[in-house]
């Protein structure tokens, strides 16, 4: 078995991927274990090919991608802090890209309704973003609600399982006869899973604080919560743009 997969079970996200694009999500029902309390855990499952070289390469690429996303999040945070929704140039269309879209949304939300009564497309778009953001938040809650299980599989064989508790306790079970390279693969997998969890929480932080700052700057009725979806969309757009830029490079 030479396939590979990075699957986060216990979380169902729109598009079947986490917002950082590292893990596939398959929802709570697809945990790889028997029935029981599966919904109580988040399982980070790393399936690696038999080839040790390929396995290390795949893991290394994912780990690097997480680091890149964390750096990008720092950029996004800075860009959000620099936004001035009350500055006139946004209204005059001098800004393009994700910033322009975000500013347009803020201005729509900040104004009285009368001007938008007939904008059914905008309403529909807002509803979609809201629903996605709310679903995301509900799913992200699982990140801080459940222990993390990390399972490493190589060539179709489970080689190790680590359970990480809130207190940081590690319980690791190794397959009898596991090799040293396989141990290293699992250690890297644990590192990747926990770094991803931190990065996802960091993303929430960036969206939350960004929405708050903008809500106060723009005096948006409804405040931070109203802007959460728009800022979330903005963060995703920026991350995607940065990713495209990285790929082109």
């Amino acid at each position: 078995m030479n396939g590979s997969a990075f699957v986060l079970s216990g979380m169902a996200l729109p598009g079947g991927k986490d917002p950082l694009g590292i893990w596939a999500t398959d929802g709570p029902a697809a945990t790889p274990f028997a029935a029981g309390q599966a919904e109580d855990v988040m399982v980070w499952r790393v399936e690696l090919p038999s080839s040790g070289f390929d396995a290390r390469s795949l893991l290394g690429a994912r780990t690097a991608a997480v680091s890149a996303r964390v750096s990008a999040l720092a950029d996004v945070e800075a860009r959000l802090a620099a936004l001035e929704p009350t500055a006139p140039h946004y209204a005059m269309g001098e800004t393009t890209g994700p910033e322009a879209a975000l500013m347009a949304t803020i201005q729509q939300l900040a104004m009285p309704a009368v001007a938008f009564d007939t904008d059914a497309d905008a309403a529909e778009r807002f509803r979609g973003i809201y629903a996605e953001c709310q679903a995301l938040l509900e799913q992200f809650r699982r990140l801080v609600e459940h222990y993390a299980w990390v399972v490493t599989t190589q060539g179709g064989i489970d080689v190790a399982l680590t359970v990480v508790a809130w207190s940081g306790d590690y319980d690791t079970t190794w397959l009898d006869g596991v090799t040293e390279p396989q141990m290293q693969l699992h250690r890297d997998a644990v590192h990747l899973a926990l770094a991803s969890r931190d990065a996802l929480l960091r993303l929430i932080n960036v969206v939350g604080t960004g929405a708050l700052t903008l809500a106060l700057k723009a005096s948006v009725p409804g405040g931070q919560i109203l802007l959460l979806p728009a800022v979330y969309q903005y963060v995703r757009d920026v991350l995607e743009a940065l990713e495209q830029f990285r790929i082109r490079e």
Partner: protein
Amino acid sequence: MPDDLKSLFEADLVFNGVNAVTGEYGQPPLSSRQLARLIRGQPLPEDYREFVERQRHLGALTNVQDRLQRVTDVEFTLHEQAMAARLEELKFKARSQMQWPVKPGAGDISRVEDVGWAVIFPAAMNPALREEIKEALGPLLNHRRAQAGDLFRVCEGSDAYRTGERKDQYFRRVGIGAGLADPDEFPFYVLLVGTPDEIPFAFQYQLDVMRGVGRLDFGSDVEAYADYARAVVAAETGQVVLPRRAAFFAPANPGDKATELSSEYLVQPVFENLSVASPENELALLHEWELLSPFVGDGQATHSQLGQLLGGAPGLTPALLFTASHGIEFPANHPAQLRHQGALLCQDWPGPGETVRREHYFTGEDIDEEANLTGMVAFLFACYGAGTPELDQFAATAFKVREKIAPRNFTAALPQRLLRYGMLAVIGHVERAWGYSFISPGGRLEHQTFITSLRTLMNGDPIGLATDASFNMRYAELSSDLAADLDELQWNPDYISDYELAHRWTANNDARSYVVLGDPAVRIPFEREAVVDEGPVDLGTITAEVPAAEGPQVPPPLPEIAGEGRVKEGAAEAPQEEGGVVVEMPPPLPDTPPDEIKIEAQPEAPTPLAEAEELVAERAGPSVATPQQAGDAPSAGGGAPTIGVAPAVIPTTPGVVPPAQGPRQLVRVQPVYVEGEAAYVAFGLSDQFEKLKVSLRRFTDQLATSLGHAAEDIVTLDVRTYSARDIRAVAAALDAHQDPDATLRALTRVDFDGDVQVYIPEKADSGFAQLVLAVHKAMVEEAQTSRARFLATMAELATSLLNSLRIGS
């Protein structure tokens, strides 16, 4: 009036309250004659036999003596004295001819700033728990402190309520005089914190005569106190603005006289009355309200419908909910009693004698997990809707026995849960609600108390006032009349009919036992619209106080202004001494343009929330406008302006400039008003907005909980290394909370102070064993690094989200 109402008292009287175990009335129907005998305390032997038989029939307890004890003369006398003391005070209050029970000159009774706010803790409460509750209530206490200033008081320690004290004893001990409330001596609004075992309902009744009193009782659930405090502060700082929508809910169960009456002759007429803004001789509504068609009877007053009104369908959730139904009761000590007694029996119940199923009644557990009731107020007319006393008062009156109807005094679970979910206050009934209080033997409807109470709330006044002018005063009148009737009946058995006596007694008891659960100073945070009436200043309207001109006092006219704000023309008439928020108009500064005077809200002491907003605003740069700066916060006293409004700028008549000195005169202005509604409302995003808010709240709650778990276990870090033949089997066992088939190879425990204990096998001579030990050591380092990073991330996230939620939710 229908003839059947006139003949109502000729048939057996049916009372509110259904026993969940038997499906029968909690209090069996009585004839007026029989009830009259019991009220006079002159039961016939068959009355007592019937009573005892009922106890047997009811009982999960077969030994009736466990439930009934003869009331000693001393006990009965003490009870009578307590009731008499309260009655005397009520009579005094009625005689005082004051609209409100505060000393003249105390200020505006609707304003905490004028009449103060206090919280009383019981001395019986565990000190550690008290401190935790105080900390949880911190935002609310700080908010009230900022409003009340010197008129803020926390009664604990030597000022705490001591078990067994009556109000007069408590007042004497802490140096408070009797009579009308003097806020300088003790605040008008008083919040009791604790269970009714710690601070009895009787004390609450007594204190409520001359004060606005409410109770918070979440037991030892400290988080619930914190949630409630956050909800009140959010509601009073402009973060919550509800649509002016009221809903009415009234089952009419098949074959049930009690709910037939309450739906047809209480809820429906009250609804019709409130549909008229200014009926003759009644409190005028200052704002237009949307009254949802009453949910009455078949297919309407169902369990699922009530769930939808209580947050299950956010678009439907009203700001004010009035219900009239049976309350569920259980035999004493029944396992479900503490959780379900006082729950509202819905239309789903097929009627008297039929089995009561769990899905027939609505209790706290039925509230949608995602419900957001922040800002709501509910009035629950139902037996035990607010709470249950340990001993039944009716049995004491009728048979001079102590009938133990509960293991202890307790607050009902439904209102507790409602408050936990953001509801600001609940008016409910302690003990049995007798019904019939709204129908006289002559067939006349007497629901004025309900109407006054609801109109007060709909005008945006504090809930502590809503019961004062209605139920308290009605109780004073009824009690006076009843006492005189009973006295006269001793000499003249035909003085009044049994029907009349039964009516007066039940009405008296109904009026006596209403209580407020929640902070008595809260008011419904609805959007204030422009007020254009020119009558006397009403509570809740905004007034501007300006220095009057010398000579003939002609206030400057207040014409309509340009822009979004509107001010009523000629609204400067009818100066009043009381009411509303006083907005001071300062004399014009020398550089003020002569044709403009700015009227701005008088700056209040900064609340913690305002300080936080300012802090964020400062950090965000000088161009940031906080919601308050933008007029997004309510003005003090309830005149909450709508969103995003700058202070009104009112042009004055050229040449008429108020002088800098001179006596003050009140000029009425209306709240500034923006046309249209928030964009997200128009986009149909209200539901999504509410859901998102709930999700964010749940996320932060979970974050805090998980951090708490982590903090509990942070003293040590354990790293264990096992080996097994089948990893999948290990996972499945762990998944099922079973011991996995695995061998422990090493354990390292790192203490918080840095001590490290390592447990390894005495012999690790195989290659694999050596390998496992090596990787174990590496995993210990990984665990230490990972824990530090994860806790830092969680803490940062918790700090920023919790702080921002305070501002943004």
